[in-house]
């Protein structure tokens, strides 16, 4: 099981708690995690990445294992700790605004 945490507004939108657990087929890539998340919660499609280009939205960040994965390609495999479910894959709303 992959653990994914969502920011407050997306939790409300998907009507879930802070963390969701997903079955993600191997190899577990960033793109595969997002595919599984959106398949389970279709309302999230377009809110994390553009529906057409699949590019990450500008004010979304991906953190895991104290690393910023935001600019990693979708094909990048996540760390073993994430694939094993011991560490969460964190989807975060970037600091922006004032």
């Amino acid at each position, binding site marked *: 099981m992959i653990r994914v945490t969502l920011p407050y*507004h997306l939790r409300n939108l998907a009507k879930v708690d802070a963390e969701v657990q997903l079955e993600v087929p191997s190899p577990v890539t960033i793109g595969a995690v997002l595919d599984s998340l959106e398949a389970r919660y279709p*309302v999230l499609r377009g809110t994390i990445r553009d*529906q057409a280009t699949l590019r990450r*939205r500008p004010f979304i960040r991906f953190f895991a294992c104290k690393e910023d994965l935001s600019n990693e390609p979708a094909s990048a495999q996540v760390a073993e700790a994430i694939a094993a479910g011991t560490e969460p894959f964190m989807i975060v709303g*970037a600091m922006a605004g004032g």
Partner: protein
Amino acid sequence: MSSIRVLVGTRKGAFVLTSDGKRDKWDVAGPHFAGWEMYHLKGSPVDPNCIYASQSSGWFGQIIQRSDDGGKTWSPPGVKPEDLMGPDGMPKGQSNMFAYEGDAGTHKWYDGTQHPWEFKRIWHVEPSLTDHDTVYAGAEDAAIFKSTDGGKSWKELSSLRRVKGQLWQPGAGGMAVHTILIDPKNPNRIYIAISAAGAFRTDDGGQTWKPINRGLKSQYELPDPDAEVGHCVHRIAIHPSRPDVVFMQKHWDVMRTDNAGDQWSEVSGNLPTDFGFPIDVHAHEPETIYVVPIKSDSEHFPIDGKLQVWRSRSGGNEWEALTNGLPQKNCYVNVLRDAMCVDSLDPCGIYFGTTGGQVYVSPDGGNNWNAIVHDLPPVLSVEVQTLR
């Protein structure tokens, strides 16, 4: 007994205000979608309990929400549990997908160069006057989308952007289709308005569009004051009994046309300033119109801190200030273009919301005003439903 439901979109959520027909005691529900920008909510004239809402965020993009119980509960069309899986096993949930048709092309950017069309948000939703599942949406960057399945999927009426779209240039507030008016006598005729592009009309249900800006003069905003496109139209309004008569609050100037936009003339008359954003028409008097004069394009607040609605009973030119119940000192709010509306009771109720978070009602056509609420987030839009 009639009742009233006011749908308020704000920078930080949506609110639903309800009252009986007296319009003196109000219940306030919300915030719905707390923390999100709610640009616009509007109910279907066919089924008032069906309400569409545009929910957006700089972080998370665009969501369309629909309520089927008068605003009590909401869900994005197409993602109810029974809708989750389509026949191919793939999830639905396209209700927030607004894709420009074909090659999106480019428009004029602030520096004069060409810039790609990029979807940002939905400013305005306009349900069909006759069909429960048909609804239009006005987008930034400027485009109009149509759904025929209750908001589950959207298709652009793309010929609009071919009307010299390469010359459209965003203003300070962006470049959006902010007004959509469906002709109640001819559903194939739709008027739309775009800030910094102008007003446009289709007579064939959106297959083709033409600019309707003849007579507009923008001597301070355009190198050619009489240009075919490029005028900063802030709002247009019609009375359902006379859809060929259209009133306009332009950046500067209040205008009217009596021939569906083929020729406009100025009716600013004795207004203290003819800059402003909203304009609307009395429900029962097609020549009675309302504007909120704002000092200037440089100072977006009422003159001398006095919030005044101005009314003309002659279709323009002769105007009177309506001040009873409105703050007449130290008031420096703005009233945005989608934040004024009228109910259809008799006497007609007039409503508007401010960037200071007040929503005002006049239950007597503008003679007297009361604040329904004082301290909401900045109000982006106000729509009213008259329920019988």
